């Protein structure tokens, strides 16, 4: 750690001891959240989310593909995240590293395990043709808390995405000869239609340093954090996913406090999300 970083660390900890954060937030308070949707014309769905200075774009592309043999009636979803060099002086181009893999996998599980996308409604011909949903996350500006920003951007992009049946109609019609059932499918789906979704859990991330736990860490706070905890909660008040990170530890007590705070913030973020997607 450089001497500048050391001084910054001391300052943040000193402030924290007196109950304060550098940007005057409360310990359990998020930075300002802004969501813009439908910003990429070529994408089936897209959203740009900023939390403080952190800026992420998520884009949804869809295509026709084959289902997995063990799920012949279900569409397929894939999540990829790129920590592109644009977003930080520390990100390098190249194949995804452990950080971006963890990010993509946590966002992916948040969507997959909570069954947000009703993949059963994305089947065109069982065992043969289903819709593929690609969620691509582009980190543009990195000032901490990528997990929540990326996850929120993915949700907003999914919630505004349309299944591009019009764009792919020529290809589907070509397949009709081989698969006559497509005619019926095309009749039932004459136009682009929204992705079939259920209510999404909202992910909130906390960080711990020097025995203090704060919500939505900024980059400066992340850099001194010993442990991180991401919790996704739903409208019913249930927990839908958790992921601890970094080499520090949490006590059971701390975890219970983080859960509570995640519910409170999750509720507020859900409102912002719903408003942004016109729901």
């Amino acid at each position, binding site marked *: 750690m450089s001497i500048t970083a050391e001084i910054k660390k001391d300052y943040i900890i000193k402030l924290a001891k007196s109950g304060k954060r550098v940007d005057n937030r409360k310990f359990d308070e998020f930075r300002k959240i802004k969501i813009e949707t439908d910003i990429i014309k070529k994408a089936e769905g897209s959203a740009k989310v900023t939390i403080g200075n952190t800026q992420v774009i998520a884009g949804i592309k869809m295509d026709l593909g084959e289902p997995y043999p063990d799920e012949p009636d279900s569409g397929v979803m894939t999540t990829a995240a790129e920590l592109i060099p644009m977003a930080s002086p520390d990100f390098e181009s190249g194949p995804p590293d452990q950080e971006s893999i963890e990010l993509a996998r946590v966002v992916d599980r948040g969507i997959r395990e909570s069954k947000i996308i009703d993949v059963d409604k994305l089947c065109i011909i069982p065992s043969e043709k289903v819709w593929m949903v690609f969620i691509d996350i582009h980190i543009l500006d990195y000032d901490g808390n990528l997990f929540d920003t990326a996850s929120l951007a993915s949700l907003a992009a999914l919630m505004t995405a349309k299944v591009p049946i019009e764009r792919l109609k020529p290809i589907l019609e070509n397949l009709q000869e081989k698969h006559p059932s497509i005619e019926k499918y095309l009749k039932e789906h004459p136009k682009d239609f929204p992705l079939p979704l259920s209510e999404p859990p909202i992910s909130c991330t906390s960080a711990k340093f020097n025995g203090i736990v704060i919500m939505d860490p900024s980059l400066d706070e992340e850099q001194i954090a010993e442990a991180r905890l991401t919790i996704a909660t739903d409208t019913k008040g249930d927990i*839908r996913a958790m992921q601890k990170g970094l080499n520090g530890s949490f006590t*059971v007590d701390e975890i219970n406090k983080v859960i509570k705070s995640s519910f409170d913030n999750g509720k507020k973020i859900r409102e912002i999300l719903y408003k942004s997607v016109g729901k």
Partner: protein
Amino acid sequence: MKTEIKLIKNGKRLDGRKNDELRPIKIEAGVLHRAEGSCYLEWGGNKVLAAVYGPREAVPRHTQNPLRAIVNARYNMAAFSVDDRKRPGPDRRSREISKVISEALENIIITEKFPRASIDVSIEILDAEAGTRCAGLTAAAEALVDAGIPLKDIPVACAAGKIEGEIVLDLGKEEDNFGDADLPIAIAPRTGEILLLQMDGHLTQKEFDKALDLAIKGCKTIAELQKKAILEKYQKNMEG
């Protein structure tokens, strides 16, 4: 294709276990010749081998930390350890698990003793049947002890989960595939601090409390097996 499976029948789980019962676990320390520490662990149908090299000079150099050792755990599944052959080499899943295990182990290793060094932990899943990350971490911790790496505590991992609406310990294969939630954790047993925590599925807050409690209890049981295995190794060495 989605099969309806009844995971609890007459108050018993598919393999006959009670809700708070672990699968059989067998731990053996010091099973490899070249590695500086090693452990073979069987946990239900899982067979895991862990080996430790180091502390040694971290390479490439730019990965060195001038103040402490870095900890590289590498979780790897053998191609033949799963039903459908796995392509050799790391995939996204194994790289994520390697990361969370590395972080958990780093917590309890006294890394300040070895600036610029690396401590390298190999975890090979030879036979896989639900819960390999907990089995891998537990074996890795044992291998660290066997290697004589200075530790603050011996970490240990175990999962709890939810099946058929009930909170149970240590999900088995079908329970993992068809259950409602899985909560793998690792703890430092002396302090009870939580080093690793992941959750997928759906738990109410009450269920979470219960599952966390159960998983911690599981960890503590396994911690005893870890200690016993180390003791056996020492005894064997002294006898041999």
